[in-house]
């Protein structure tokens, strides 16, 4: 090993954290290499100096009883806070869950009711909306059969003596309706 490699391991050598072989190798090297020995000793002297300086500068500092008291008090104060938070957490969680369930339920209800209303609508070529069948029209064929995915509804307009035929489609634009005179039907 070259001097550079040994010098890189000087700290670990002092720590005694190297393997026995390498430790012994460095010890032997320090005996024969003046420069490496100087570096090792210089580090040792600096270490002694810094330790003494830092010890002296801090020797008067001692943790005081008031800090111990404050920290013990802080520990005591922390307890109810944690309890209070847990209590709020305990109450808030079910409430928020309930609100979410309510919102979901209401949304489903609104969507469902609007769909039901849609189902009651009859789309005509010239008019779209709720068509009041009870008022002046009656369904002649309550079975209303499906034909090629279309619902054909025949309605009777007593007032104007005519039949109406509605051929519905899933696409409202393709839904058609036409009227026939009653006589013509007969």
């Amino acid at each position, binding site marked *: 090993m070259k001097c550079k490699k040994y010098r890189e391991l000087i*700290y670990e050598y002092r720590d005694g954290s190297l393997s026995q072989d390498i430790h012994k190798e460095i010890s032997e090297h320090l005996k024969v290499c003046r420069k490496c020995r100087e570096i090792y000793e210089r580090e040792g002297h600096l270490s002694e100096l810094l330790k003494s300086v830092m010890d002296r500068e801090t*020797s008067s500092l001692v943790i005081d009883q008031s800090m111990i008291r404050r920290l013990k008090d802080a520990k005591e104060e922390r307890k109810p806070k944690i309890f209070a938070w847990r209590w709020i957490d305990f109450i808030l969680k079910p409430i928020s869950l309930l609100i979410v369930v309510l919102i979901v339920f209401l949304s489903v209800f609104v969507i469902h009711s609007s769909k039901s209303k849609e189902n009651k609508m009859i789309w005509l070529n010239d008019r779209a909306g709720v068509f009041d069948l009870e008022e002046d029209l009656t369904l002649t064929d309550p079975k209303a059969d499906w034909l090629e995915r279309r619902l054909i509804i025949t309605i009777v307009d007593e007032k104007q003596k005519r039949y109406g035929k509605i051929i519905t489609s899933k696409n409202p634009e393709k839904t058609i309706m036409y009227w026939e005179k009653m006589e013509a039907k007969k």
Partner: protein
Amino acid sequence: MKSEREETWVDAFKKGEPRSIEKVITVYGTPLLRSAFLLCGSEVEAHDMVQETFLQAIKSIHKFKGKSSLFTWLYGILLNIFRQQIRKRRYSAFPGDFGDKNSKSGINPEHNLERKREFSRVYSMIQTLSPHHREALILRYYEGLKITEIAEIARVSKGTVKSRLHYATEALRKIMPSDLKHLGHSIANNKE
């Protein structure tokens, strides 16, 4: 190294037993306070940092898995707080009050005045280093930690720790007057 006694405190500390909190603060408070002071250079800030360290430790003791010693874990928290402070303040050193501290330190009046002055000069030089380099220097030379332990606390690689130490010591040597360089030798010789 973790002692059996420490494990007992940690268990009690985890349960939040007031006596164990007092014990942990009494045992580790002073070393942490001294390190905090070396890091930030201000006694007031050091007290705040240590207080915050223990508050965070009490709050998150359940996260302590016991892989390192409790002191290492606490030191990691302290270092995080120090780094946060540095980021907040955007300056490398706290406004130091280390000069005033010695007046109430109760140091023996017969203490060699010359050496005292020299020590203060070295300490002021440490304070001029960047936070990362100061951090590495304190962990190594004040806490006496091994490279692997410093890497664990500072959450950097061993290579980074060594590079920071090398840079910090070189920077100190450059700014250190030649008369102070011999101070280390005399301290070492006195010990022998």
